[in-house]
Structure formats: structure tokens, C-alpha cells
């Protein structure tokens, strides 16, 4: 029993929480690819930006990071709209690779701006020590519950948006066939703006969750890039629900791979967690490049 509770407390639950965070980032990558047809490499740094925007409120006014989260989401969405206007919109009709390179530039700019404003040191939200809730041998931290529930709520909200609202359906239509959407009278630029708002907003929420879970530093977005793209590829790029499943799968795979499966040693050394995501991505690209949910190749 102790072994099982250990497995749940130390591997399964953390894997689930990390998976939620990956899912929040990967949704944006997948949505943006579906609409704009390019891989947005600055997406990890959108998460970093969200985490630092929350620090303004936790550090200066002593807000709880949960209270700062909505403000960080709105802030990141506004920044993303500005970045799109300045750096991506001019390349709308150019080949996708031009926008990919532009996103590399944006990635470096965001990171440097964050380092200039907030410095290069590791920061935390100062939540103080909270004791986990104990259910027998199970130990669940309140922040884990919050992260999972808020992510679930955001995914449900996204689903309702995509299936019930005029703009959400238009977003799926543009992702399906942008030329047809244009000649049908759909305002494609409006759809693009909302894709940035949603993608950056969810990324910022994920970034704040990382801060709540561990710590905030300027390179966190760079470290996230690999698992985020692995998650988006696993789910089938261009498929937001696939990205959710992919995020959870990558998060769980990374944590569970370090469990003592076959001996008293971790199966995979924890230092090699990113390699797990990388392996999953490589295997998927070889075996099934459209992802588990039939995305775009």
C-alpha cells in the first residue's frame, strides 16, 4: 500500500499537474498552427511572460497568485495582439517559414525584455508553506487540486467556445480551410485576433501555474518548448483537444518514466525528463506524423 500511495503522491499527481500545464501551452501552439499555419516558437516565452506579469501583483501588492492569474492572462493576451500586429501580420501572405523565423526573433526579444525588467534571478510567488491534505496515505497539495480544476474548467470553456459560439465555429472553419472561410465572408483577421487572445491567455495561465508549483525564471519558456511541441505533435497539430490529451500524456510520461519500475533505481534518471518528451515526439513523427487525433502533417 505504501508503495502505491508513493506512486500516486510522488509520480502520478505531479505528472497530472505538469500535464495540465503542458496542455495549456500546447493548446495555443495547436490553435495558432491551425489558423496561421506556422509553428509559434515564442509560445514558451508567452508562458514566461504570464508568470512574470503575475509577479508584479504578488511582489508589489502581496496579491495571491490566483488573484493575479486573470490579470496576467489579460496582460499576455494584449501583448500577443501587439506582437501579432508588429511582427506576424506583415508576413501573413509570405511562406510559413518566414513567420517561424519571426517567432524565433520574438522569442529572443521577449526573453531579453523579461531579463531587463525583472532580472535574471529565480523568483517565487511567496505563497508560504501550505500543508497537503491527507486522505489516508494519499497526500494532495491544495495547489495541485486548483491547477487541475482550473485547467479542466478552461478546457471545458474552450470546448464550449469552439462548438457553441459564432466566433468559435468560425475559428474551426478558418482552421479547416482559410480560403473558403475568406470567400464565405468570415472575418479572418478577427478570428486571428481571438486565436492570439486565447492562445496567449491559456499560455499565461500555464506560466502562472508553473510559478505556483515551483519557481519563475527567464529561461523557463525555453525549457518548456520541447514538451509543448511534443504534446502538440502527439495530439495532432491543429487539434486543440488533441493538444490537451498530448499535454497530459507528455506530463505523465515524463514523471512516470522516473518511477522505480524495474529496480530500486529510477527507470529514467530525472535529469533526462526532457529526453522522454523528445523521444515521444520523434517516435510520433516517424510512426504517425499526423498525431493520435489525425491533425495536419
Amino acid at each position, binding site marked *: 500500500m505504501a508503495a502505491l500511495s508513493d506512486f500516486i503522491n510522488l509520480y502520478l499527481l505531479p505528472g497530472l499537474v505538469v500535464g495540465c500545464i503542458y496542455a495549456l501551452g500546447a493548446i495555443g501552439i495547436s490553435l495558432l498552427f491551425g489558423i496561421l499555419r506556422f509553428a509559434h516558437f515564442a509560445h514558451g516565452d508567452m508562458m514566461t511572460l504570464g508568470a512574470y506579469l503575475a509577479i508584479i501583483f504578488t511582489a508589489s501588492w502581496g496579491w495571491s497568485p490566483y488573484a493575479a492569474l486573470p490579470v496576467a492572462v489579460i496582460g499576455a493576451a494584449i501583448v500577443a495582439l501587439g506582437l501579432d500586429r508588429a511582427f506576424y501580420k506583415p508576413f501573413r501572405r509570405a511562406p510559413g517559414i518566414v513567420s517561424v523565423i519571426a517567432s524565433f526573433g520574438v522569442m529572443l526579444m521577449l526573453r531579453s525584455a523579461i531579463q531587463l525588467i525583472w532580472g535574471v534571478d529565480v523568483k517565487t510567488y511567496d505563497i508560504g508553506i501550505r500543508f497537503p491534505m491527507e486522505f489516508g496515505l494519499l497526500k494532495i497539495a491544495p495547489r495541485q487540486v486548483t491547477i487541475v480544476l482550473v485547467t479542466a474548467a478552461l478546457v471545458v470553456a474552450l470546448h464550449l467556445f469552439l462548438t457553441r459560439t459564432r466566433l468559435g465555429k468560425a475559428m474551426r472553419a478558418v482552421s479547416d*480551410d482559410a480560403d473558403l*472561410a*475568406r470567400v464565405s*465572408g468570415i472575418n479572418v483577421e478577427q478570428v486571428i485576433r481571438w486565436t492570439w487572445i486565447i492562445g496567449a491567455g491559456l499560455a499565461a495561465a500555464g506560466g502562472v501555474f508553473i510559478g505556483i508549483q515551483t519557481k519563475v525564471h527567464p529561461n523557463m519558456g525555453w525549457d518548456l518548448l520541447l514538451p509543448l511541441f511534443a504534446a502538440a505533435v502527439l495530439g495532432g497539430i491543429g487539434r486543440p483537444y488533441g493538444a490537451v490529451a498530448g499535454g497530459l500524456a507528455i506530463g505523465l510520461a515524463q514523471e512516470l518514466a522516473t518511477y522505480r519500475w524495474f529496480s530500486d533505481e529510477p527507470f529514467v534518471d530525472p535529469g533526462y525528463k526532457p529526453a522522454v518528451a523528445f523521444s515521444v515526439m520523434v517516435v510520433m513523427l516517424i510512426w504517425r506524423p499526423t498525431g493520435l487525433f489525425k491533425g495536419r502533417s
Partner: protein
Amino acid sequence: MSLLSVENLVAGYGPVDILQGVNLTVEAGRIAVIVGPNGAGKSTAMKAIFGLAQVRGGRVLFEGQEITRLPADTLCGRGIAYVPQERNVFRSLSVRENLEMGAFLKPGNIARRIAEVLTLFPPLREKLAQAAGELSGGQRQMVAMGRALMLEPKLLMLDEPTAGLSPLYMDQIFDRIIAVNKSGVGVLLVEQNAKQALAIAHTGYVLATGRNRFTDTAANLLANREVAESFLGG
């Protein structure tokens, strides 16, 4: 004043001009058809009007106002709906959602307009919840036309609506085009099945190598021996 008039249109893709000065008119509430051999520029004429081919000369007027090079959503807003030949439905969206997307610019009264489209295309009634990509070619064409009609357009432009359809569906689609036209919508049609298309049209244009070859009433074109021998397969 004509509903649509195309004057001396020069258009193409990249450096190549496909149309070399084409003239067309569609009168309000009438059907005009463009026929001609492959590569004559029939589809390019429509694409140029909707900004999918580059216009390099001439102009396009709609209800007397110049609309050359205006963005697609502006044209839709003025009352022009366009159904491309291929990839004319949102495959992953349901039939109902496809119709709703046709109404993106005019979000009011969607239920009433969907009901009207279903009256026109009864086979879609049972398919509303199904993904449009799963339908047969003929039903997809109905979805595409239905989506265009959701705009309540004054002019409906159809690019080869019967291409690849079985004769049964072909007849159904021509029949529905007549029905749409009877409700007062002007129709501009590009067709490979020239005889059938001319049979339902008021005016016909025969294009060859990017130029007007014959322009006449549809009945006269059908009766013209030269047209019949060269372009209608005898």
C-alpha cells in the same frame, strides 16, 4: 443597370495572364453561363472577381459601383456569394455549422434562413449534425450552395457545380439552380456540361483562350451550329 458587369478583365496567376480582356454581364434575376474548353479561363473569371486571381486590367461593377479588387468579405456584404469548385465545404464542421458560417456576416434570423435552405435542399435535413466531409459529392454541393444562400445574396456565382457528379445529382443541381433563380437571385454559372447549362440559362458566354468567342442569348448559342460543333461536342 446590370447586376454584374465585367469590363475588359485581364487577370491571371503569378506572371501569367489567363484572361485577356473578357466582358460579361449578369442581369438581376437572370442566369448567365460561361462555357468553353478547358483552360479558356472560365473559373479564372470568377476567381478574379473574388480576389483569388490577380486582376491586372479592366474593372468589375456590381449594381453600377466599382468592386474591382475589393476584399472578399466586402463583396459578400454587398450581396455576392461564391461557391468554389473544389474544397467548397468546411469538411470538419457539421452541415448546420457550414450553413451558419455562410451567415457569419449577417448573424440575425439564422433559424429562418436555415429552414429556407432546407426547403430548397431537403436531403440535407437529416444530415444537419453530420460532418460535411462525410457527405457524397452531390450533397456536399448542396451544402456549399446552401452556405452561399445563407447570405441572401443578389448574385450567386457557381464554379462548375456539377463537376464529378452522377447524372442524377447533376439534374438535381440544375433543377435547384433554377429554383434559386426563381426566388430572384441572379446566377453566374461556369459549366463543363455546356448544353445542360445553356438550357437553363438566359445568357451565354463562350470563352476560348482567355477571350470572348461568342456572346448571345443561351437559346441562340444552343442553335448556333459553329458553337455546337466547336464547343458543345457536336
